[in-house]
């Protein structure tokens, strides 16, 4: 790992200032992806701005139509939260499936979103539930936030402060985990929301996406068989030594069916 200047601001404004004053600054949240990346010298920022000292970014609270989770809230806190378990149990269950115990004790929801790993779990929940990403500048709808491989709508100097989740009628997440990394080979989040059925898929391609064919099928008939009956085009999926595009495409229908069953 190359060395860097370390900053630990106490509020978001100071974090933005530190970032602006750095030649090539990077924000660190939980660091569960960033620290390994630095160790492999895949990134070598001049400055690291640590958000762990900002109390305002932590915590879970109820709002009229759902819950809001601070960007620096750990996965383990979301998994154990009675508030999340009662309002959106599928979200608590998803958090419990991320990485391993030590990753969940340290990793954060804001970090996971800003990183937008194409096989991460949280993006499926954010997109599946039609959540809103709040930043120091604005609110971004889930449908606009994710923009492909490790790409998001975040601009320079923009920091995620919280994520707001509207409470769905029903929701469930089912993940087929890659057995070594625990990342999703395919993960499918199914939600019945005020705005209709939403089905979000992670692990399949260059980033999380909505399986609109399955949404249409489920809108007509909300059953596991309806989800399972949809055949997706393997051309839209990536392939690697863990699974071919055909295998991943088939897994989406299967995991969607299991999620519907669990709803």
């Amino acid at each position, binding site marked *: *790992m*190359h*060395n*860097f*200047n*370390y900053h*630990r601001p106490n509020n978001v404004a100071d974090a933005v200032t530190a970032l602006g004053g750095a030649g090539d600054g990077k924000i660190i949240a939980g*660091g*569960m992806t960033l*620290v*390994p990346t*630095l*160790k492999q010298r895949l990134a070598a920022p001049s400055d*690291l701005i*640590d958000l*762990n000292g900002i109390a305002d970014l932590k915590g879970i609270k109820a709002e009229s139509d759902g819950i809001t989770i601070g960007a620096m809230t750990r996965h*383990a806190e979301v998994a*154990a939260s009675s508030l999340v378990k009662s309002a959106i149990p599928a979200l608590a269950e998803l958090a419990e499936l991320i*990485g*391993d*115990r*030590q*990753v969940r*004790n*340290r990793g954060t929801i804001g970090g996971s979103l800003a990183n937008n790993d194409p096989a991460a779990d949280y993006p499926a929940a954010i997109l599946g539930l039609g959540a809103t990403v709040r930043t120091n500048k604005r609110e971004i709808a889930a449908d606009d936030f994710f923009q492909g491989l490790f790409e998001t709508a975040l601009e320079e100097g923009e920091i995620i402060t919280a994520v707001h989740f509207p409470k769905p009628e029903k929701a469930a997440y089912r993940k087929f985990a890659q057995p*070594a990394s*625990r990342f999703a080979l395919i993960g499918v989040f199914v939600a019945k929301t005020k705005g209709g059925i939403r089905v979000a898929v992670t692990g399949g391609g260059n980033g999380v996406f909505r399986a609109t064919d399955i949404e249409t099928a489920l809108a007509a008939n909300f059953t596991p068989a309806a989800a399972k009956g949809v055949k997706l085009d393997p051309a839209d999926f990536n392939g690697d030594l863990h699974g071919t595009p055909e295998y991943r495409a088939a897994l989406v229908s299967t995991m969607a069916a299991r999620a519907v069953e669990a709803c």
Partner: protein
Amino acid sequence: MPTVRMTVNGRAVSGEIEARTLLVHFLRNQLGLTGTHVGCDTSQCGACVVHVDGTSIKSCTLLAIQAEGAEVTTIEGLATGDELHPMQAAFREHHGLQCGFCTPGMVMSAVDLVKTNPDPSEQQIREGLEGNICRCTGYHNIVKAVKAGAKAMNAGAMKG
């Protein structure tokens, strides 16, 4: 170079470090606490697990400077004098090891697991140890040890 201060196994410590120094390297190289191991160095194997402010983390994936002001417990801090922690004793009793390299991380993860789940099932133990890899694949006795260690920790808590 920045100075970092923290409490390690109940003792206030400080040291000059580079910002890039990992917590595990500070513990091993500067404090001489070599019970915490570096196995994979890629955040996967869990040989480096320690407790920071009461929860288990991988010390190869935390900068030492990020532990400023924290309470850190390593494998050396579990025993009370010559008396092993109940989880350590259970690992010895059930031979929860083969080569022993992963053992410190296994024990630290197991103690954290039992704190949040005092009576874990075999399945919960296996899931709770997902972040710890035993390259000898000696999981069978490790799981038995954690089950027994949990029981002993609970008995100790009741006595205490």
